[in-house]
């Protein structure tokens, strides 16, 4: 439900990261986002058909505070010359890494 979704967002330690270049790697994501806190995992967004990166990913931290710091400091700065956009995500679930092909 909607309120359930909102509650999840408020406690979430996961960010959706968008506007990435298709060539940006997991390594680069780690480098930038580790500067804001201890990264638990990165899940690259993949094209449904070709299974290649398609410009977004999920970054999960161990704590809410670390994720908040990433929202404050990494959001809106550049990686691979593109301004990365971060947003709260209710938490990654298998299957969500596939974008629309």
């Amino acid at each position, binding site marked *: 439900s909607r309120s359930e979704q909102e509650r999840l967002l408020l406690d979430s330690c996961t960010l959706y990261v968008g506007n990435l270049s298709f060539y940006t790697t997991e390594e680069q994501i780690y480098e930038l986002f580790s500067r804001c806190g201890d990264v638990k995992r990165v899940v690259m967004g993949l094209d449904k058909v070709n299974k290649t990166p398609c410009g977004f990913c999920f970054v999960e931290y161990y704590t809410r505070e670390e994720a908040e710091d990433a929202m404050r400091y990494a959001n809106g700065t550049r*990686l691979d010359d593109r301004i990365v956009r971060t947003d709260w995500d209710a938490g990654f679930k298998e299957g969500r890494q596939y974008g629309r092909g």
Partner: protein
Amino acid sequence: KRRRTSDTVDIEDRLESLITRVGEKSTSSLESNLEGLASVLEADLPNYKLKILKILCDCVVKLPEKLTVYTTLVGLLNAKNYNCGGEFVEMLVRNLKEALKSTEFDNARIMVRFLSDLVNCHVIVVGSLLSMFDSFLEVMLEDNIPQVRSDWYVYAVLSALPWIGRELFEKKETEFNKLLITIDGYISKRQKIHVPALKVWISDFPHPQEEYLDCLWAQMKNLRQNKWVEKQILRPYLAFDGVLCEALQHTLPQIIPPSHHEDTVYPLPSIVFRLFDYTDVPEGPVLPGSHAIERYLIEEQLNRIIHTHHKERKDCSAALLSFPTKNKIPLNYMIVEVMFSQLFRLPKPPHLEIFYGSALIELCKLQPGSMPQVLAQATEMLYERLDTMHTSCIERIASWFSYHLSNFQFRWSWDDWSGCVDVDALFPKPTFVREVLYKCLRLSYHQRIVDTVPDTFSALIPEKPSSYYKYEAEGSGSLPGTMIAHQLLAAIKEKCTPEEALLVLKDLPNPLSEEENDPSYHPLRIDVFVATLFHLGSKSFSHSFAAIAKFHYVLKMIADTEDGQICLLKTLFVVWKKHQQMIVVLVDKLLKTQIIECSAVANWLFSREMSSEFPKFYVWEIMHSTINKMNKHVSKLQREVEDSKDRLEMLRRRMADGLELDPDDDDIPSDEMIERMEERMETAMSQQKSLFLIIFQRFIIILTDHLARCEGNGIDYNTPWYKWIIERLQEIFLLHHELVFKYISTLEGLLFTSDIDFHILEVFQQFCALRS
């Protein structure tokens, strides 16, 4: 208690908004706003006095940049209503005593300053303020107290003097002089063993790195020479002199500093960071000298703005750039200097390092015509002064600069730095450039770096990250494990189970068996398995993590002793030697999955195989993250024990009150459970202690070895290698000072004894002095 009706809430909210916003930009003058607000508040006093006083007290600590606006407002209120003024003073004094007791020292300092300025507003009798100062300064005479305690009380008095110095000079000259003589005596007698541990630069050229109290005292002496007249503080009460003069004043009650306790933690001393002087500012307003009180006042306010807005980098940059007296000072220079002073602060910066990077980018966006130039000039100057800069600070600039470059297409006047390739590669400048390029590589990709920097830098450009699998390399046929490695490779590709993988490894002979009866680990088995596994997972972090997850059981089995774990790490290094970030991330993962222990990582980093890597920054990235992981683990267990005890306590209380228990509630900890948790916590704490002991001991060994070898060969010990390593030792002390302080007596008795080399002992003594 009476219920608050919504009307009351509305009015209270409105009062709060009116009070907190006074002094902000407005169409009418500050004086008329203050006058108007004072009348509104006067009218509301009969019904809302307590609320009004509370809001004002909040403003004291939360909006210190508007201190004189609020002292004037309190002055006007006091002139209208003497009792109200008295109650405000009482409340603030109560808050001050509370802040001193609960060691909220910075808030306490601001309250002292506020009380001082209330003398200017004719709310407080000048003599009673002097008595408070005197009782603060009496702390100097106490026996057996750490210097940081008396330092703070002196600092609290000094930092109020720019506001009240003139009044004291005019009204109480004799007493004031006596007070200044007392402070002078104190300043000249202070111990300063701690200073070298906090300096950003070892050298005092071109600017001395002064201790904060020394610097403030020098600024104060200048202010005194100027007859206590400064040019920075806004003083709105001057306009109301006629009204305020008529008001009756209150006497401050006696304020006696709470006595010292062993576990009171006072603010650490600091040094004053200076990057620029007036000659660095090409045009426009002149930069105040380092001993001008204006420099202190502006810096303090800029630091405050950063503190207030650090969670919103855009607001922070905007607030910095709209500094009240921006037209009278070279603001961009002062902002850049203050930002770097925080970034370089030892032991650690007040905020996350990336905050400074992202705020500097924001500042460049808001002032594209001037800020980038100032920042470039600062970077150039920092580069020029690298040779004497502390290792921790060099690392922080490298990290910041790579991030900054990555936001500006890696454009930089690289050619200006090409001279660094001509000196020993371990010197600070080439090391810095190499580390910047490594960091840039991590934020981009290899070809980008090659294309960005001129060819002259080729020696410093990191190699293209790649893995190395020795069992498929040329000449691997003659290696003892190659056959099994190839079998394993095939088995894993065929999706074998961990048990099946172990079977493949079973027949490998243990090279250690020839010398030992029952070797504690099997180096060949570890090497074959770990090299093969990481080789197969080499495509990305995710692939490697998946490989570790799938074969967690095997890794645990083959590396079940510390020697085995160190061997595992050595293999990892051989595979990923050309990919520092991969090593960092994999060690992290191996620790988190509890395949290896923290002490194994520390011992591995100090091993002979890693000695060529030792000065490189990623080694220290691993070292600190390993220590941090240990610390986090301990505090998590400590928290769990506390929580369970609390829960049990609450339960007992409820039972005593006759409340029924839910038998199905399995959240209730039993005494045995708590006991077990405590055991786990104690084990972790002893591991933490031994981790620090291992690290310090290994430092002492390699440094002693170096010093002895140099003495034996009759050469200067102070080599670039020595600089990197001794400063890393210092860094371990500083970054983890809260914990290391707990082990001070063990360290003193066991490791840092008087028979070790003085150069090493000195680092320990400087560290101890930070809190003494």
